[in-house]
């Protein structure tokens, strides 16, 4: 068997139809002017030109999922007696994510550490993840706001992908990255990709340098704990934040969830749904107390989680894949990369000037007051 494959441009839809035969294929599709990951079928319009508005995380980590359903059964003789039947949801369909971007695929690795590589793996995430093959399309150009190269990724980064796809003039070069990914080469309508390999590898390197690196000086983000813990810093840099959840819900690495029970008469379900640290309700306690009552504290948590807490816990891995969606789609263009770049210094002059122009101690004391 060949090591790589190739699909002619005009045969892509047929190829996806073949893939759809024994798995649900999620692909970026055009709806209006919006590109979203959704189950591919004959009625959908594929769009591989730009990253989808939403990442494909919903395939493995759905916006909401039933963990289990429960049913109360009354004793026919004695209404005082009632039993409850639980039925766990373990039925995860085979799925293929086609056309994820390298950042999207890398995002799943952030999830894996939390949900799989632990003593208590999450059966729902794990179940779906194992049944999902991720076929990633290399980026040929950066999109507004993205900065994957600054967080250890790149336009042809392979981490998290099972298959890497490179778009060429005539079609798509397909190379398996993992054992799971090799299965793609057995799909009908794929031809041997060997003759395209060289062109593809050249193409993969081309766009790397076009991607901006907001942390260029250090090559990777550096966080000053002193500045990070300064409330005024957050109040200054995120006063425009609207505290909505677009950033977290579009983030390929945000994995927080909420659990709620819904019941109608005898039947109910326990539901897990996305939640985000930008919402006030996220940390609202039963007593009514909220340890993160302001958007500043919440935003601090979001940055902290991605660039401090997660790396501390998981071998220095940054929980941001640089996809730029949170910047691109933020209604007020809050730029996390900019904020992180400010954080490198021990102090911050509250003028939004580039970090070089940091002032003296006395100055910053004054501004704090």
């Amino acid at each position, binding site marked *: 068997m060949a090591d790589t494959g190739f699909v002619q441009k005009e045969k892509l839809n047929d190829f996806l139809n073949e893939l759809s035969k024994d798995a649900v294929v999620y692909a970026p599709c055009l709806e209006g002017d919006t590109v979203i990951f959704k189950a591919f079928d004959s009625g959908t319009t594929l769009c591989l030109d730009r990253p989808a508005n939403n990442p494909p995380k919903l395939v493995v980590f759905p916006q909401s999922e039933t963990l289990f*359903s429960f049913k109360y059964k009354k004793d026919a003789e004695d209404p005082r007696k009632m039993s409850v039947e639980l039925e766990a949801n373990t039925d995860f369909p085979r799925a293929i994510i086609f056309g994820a971007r390298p950042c999207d695929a890398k995002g799943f690795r952030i999830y894996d550490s939390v949900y799989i590589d632990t003593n208590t793996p999450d059966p729902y995430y794990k179940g779906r993840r194992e049944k999902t093959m991720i076929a990633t399309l290399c980026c040929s150009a950066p999109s507004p706001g993205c900065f994957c190269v600054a967080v250890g990724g790149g336009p042809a980064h392979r981490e998290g992908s099972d298959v890497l796809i490179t778009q060429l003039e005539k079609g798509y070069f397909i190379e398996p990255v993992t054992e799971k990914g090799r299965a793609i080469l057995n799909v009908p309508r794929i031809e041997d990709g060997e003759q395209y390999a060289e062109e593809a590898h050249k193409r993969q390197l081309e766009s790397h340098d076009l991607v901006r690196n907001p942390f260029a000086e250090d090559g990777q983000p550096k966080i000053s704990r002193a500045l990070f813990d300064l409330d005024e810093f957050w109040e200054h840099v995120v006063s425009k934040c609207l505290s909505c959840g677009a950033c977290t819900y579009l983030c390929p690495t945000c994995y927080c969830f909420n659990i709620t029970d819904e019941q109608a008469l005898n039947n109910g379900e326990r539901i897990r749904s996305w939640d985000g640290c930008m919402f006030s309700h996220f940390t609202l306690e039963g007593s009514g107390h909220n340890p993160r009552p302001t958007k500043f504290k919440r935003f601090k948590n979001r940055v902290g989680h991605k660039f401090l807490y997660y790396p501390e816990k998981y071998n220095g891995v940054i929980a941001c894949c640089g996809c730029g969606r949170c910047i691109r789609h933020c209604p007020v263009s809050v730029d996390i990369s900019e904020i992180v770049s400010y954080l490198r210094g021990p102090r911050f002059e509250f003028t939004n000037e580039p970090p070089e122009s940091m002032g003296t101690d006395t100055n910053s004391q004054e501004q704090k007051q």
Partner: protein
Amino acid sequence: MSDVAARELRIVGFLCNWCSYGGADTAGVSRFKQPTDLRIIRVPCSGRVDPLFIVKALLNGADGVLVSGCHPRDCHYTDGNFYARRRLEMLKRLLPFLGIDERRFHYTWISASEGGKWQQTVTDFTKRVHELGPLHAKKEATP
């Protein structure tokens, strides 16, 4: 029961306690026969009926919603039905914009003494909803 379910549609009624619920009682006392599809929710005043209840009902399985309060000027709470009138009219005009036939929603004013009008309203509205048929052809099996 399935046989019953097949014959009936789901109609939710919000009735103010003082007039329309009394009107429905009067119709009952007078033995004015009515179709059985309607399920009545008693509220203190038609002004209590947030249009969202109607939307919620229509989105979640109801085929028709009926709201009835005291006649304008005869609200037990003086002004409640005046607010209701504006809100319900707003909703009535919005529903077709969403693609929901506005005929599935009716609001009216029936006093405690108008048992006959209540009977007529229930009969006519139920007939109309049946003519329109079920709103939810395929019900989402969500508990």
